[in-house]
């Protein structure tokens, strides 16, 4: 969301901030989830249009590169993209797998862990992970932190952008724009519990239709996501345009951001303090006065001689 957050007391996690948020007092807010049922998607892209419409995004008109994906990738002005995949199943049948790709709103967001700017990335009590452009400094660390390759840095204002899950609409009791526009009911929105129930019934239905490996994509490695998929082939998420099988925050990012940050900072402080205490106990390293006199004497002696 652009500008400042609508409800500051609803924030549960804030980038580059260690003190607890106001939300730890109660936490009575129910978590929301967007369910994307890939098996029902017809690839009409109404959701893409609705997203641009609601969020006032107008991406540049691109070029046709011979595939249905349009635009070809996410951008600062395209927060969601339909990914079209032609998949040949075990029986040799062609399946057209269309996945709506956008921010997954992880319960443990890698972008938020990597962000160095206090409050530039926040997580609300309802689970939505939001970028606050007001505090974004454009360093791109969120790109390195994200396990799903979602954030994009604008060439115009050098700030990071991604799907907000229409946090502004959700705060006012509305469903996200993509959900509202979907003509097949492929995108649903509600409480986390309800969506899981719905996803479960859809999975069972798909099992009955011969999709033995149908299942829910709600990866545990990132603490679960607030955008979940129903996949016909949940055992092979990679076939859905490289959806990661077991996404987690990269160990490289953890090593960079986790305990390294406080430990290194303390070590730097201690190093400076050690210097001071060394000086206070051992004193300065000086040339003894006798040595000075010795050299000076030799010098004057030599000068007298010449």
């Amino acid at each position, binding site marked *: 969301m652009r500008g400042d957050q609508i409800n500051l007391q609803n924030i549960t996690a804030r980038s*580059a*901030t*260690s003190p607890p948020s106001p939300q730890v007092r109660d936490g009575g807010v129910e978590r929301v989830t967007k369910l994307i049922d890939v098996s029902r998607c017809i690839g009409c892209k109404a959701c893409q249009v609705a997203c641009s419409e609601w969020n006032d995004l107008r991406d540049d008109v691109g070029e046709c590169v011979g595939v249905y994906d349009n635009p070809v990738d996410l951008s600062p002005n395209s927060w969601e993209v339909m990914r079209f995949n032609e998949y040949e199943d075990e029986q040799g049948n062609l399946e057209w797998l269309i996945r709506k790709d956008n921010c997954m709103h992880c319960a443990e967001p890698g972008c938020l862990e*990597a962000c*160095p*700017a*206090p409050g530039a990335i926040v997580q609300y009590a309802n689970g939505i992970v939001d970028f606050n452009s007001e*505090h974004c*400094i*454009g*360093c*791109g*660390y969120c*790109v*390195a932190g994200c396990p799903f*390759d979602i954030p994009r*840095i604008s*060439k115009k204002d*050098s700030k990071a952008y991604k799907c907000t899950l229409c946090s502004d609409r959700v705060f006012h009791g509305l469903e996200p724009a993509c959900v509202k526009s979907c003509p097949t009911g492929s995108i649903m929105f509600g409480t986390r519990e309800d969506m899981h129930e719905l996803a479960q019934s859809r999975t069972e239905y798909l099992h009955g239709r011969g999709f033995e490996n149908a299942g829910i994509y709600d990866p545990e490695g990132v603490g679960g996501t607030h955008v979940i998929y129903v996949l016909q082939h949940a055992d092979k998420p990679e076939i859905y345009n490289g959806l990661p099988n077991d996404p987690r925050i*990269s160990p*490289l*990012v953890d*090593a*960079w951001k986790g305990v*390294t*940050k*406080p430990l*290194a*900072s303390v*070590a*730097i402080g201690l*190093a*400076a303090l050690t*210097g001071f205490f*060394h*000086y206070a106990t*051992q*004193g*300065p*390293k*000086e*040339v*003894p006065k006798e*040595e*000075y006199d*010795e*050299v*000076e004497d030799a*010098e004057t002696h030599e*000068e007298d001689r*010449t």
Partner: protein
Amino acid sequence: MSQSKKERGILRYGWFSRLNHWTIAISFVLLVLSGLALFHPFFWGFTALFGGPIMTRILHPFIGVFMSVFFAIMAVRFFKDSLIKRHDIQWLKQIKDVLSNRDEKLPPVGKSNAGQKLVYWIMVFSVPVLLVTGVIIWQPYFADAMPITLLRLGALLHAFVAFLAIITLIIHIYSGIWVKGSFQAMVRGRVSKAWAKHHHDLWYQEKMDEERRRKESLDRIAGQ
């Protein structure tokens, strides 16, 4: 010899070395302050020194490139004086004597002691790594073109090597405060003969030999 009275002591660092050193020193401190601000929120306040958080992000890499250029010059010029010799190893073995100011027990060393040489070599390692990893994560110019693993590795290495360089810098600055006369040497360029003899005896002897030879040749010319 009125000339020698005007400029007492031995020239340790010429004007270019001093200018070069302090250009790097100032840039380095600015890099540390702006870099720490982006490393841990505890240091976030440092962004105020650079005109705000966004300006800090913009300025940091440019200062880095600027410093790297001057560092490359200094690295070449200080190379010969920084080669580790046998007596440097002995000096390092007696680091306890060094730290307890028992200087009389230490072996005589050349123009730079082993500590100074280590600072040189750590920086010769750190600065290029910081430059390369810094370019990899440089928004908005280069980072977008980098594969994600390289981006993460770049960010990680940049932080770790910067930590090493900062600790080295702290030791380096403290040594300048602790060893009386060394700070002056880098500001004014000259040191007293007693200082040179005490801290860098081999270098002192070298300088004295040079002076003697010069005097002898002058005498020869005068005698003709």
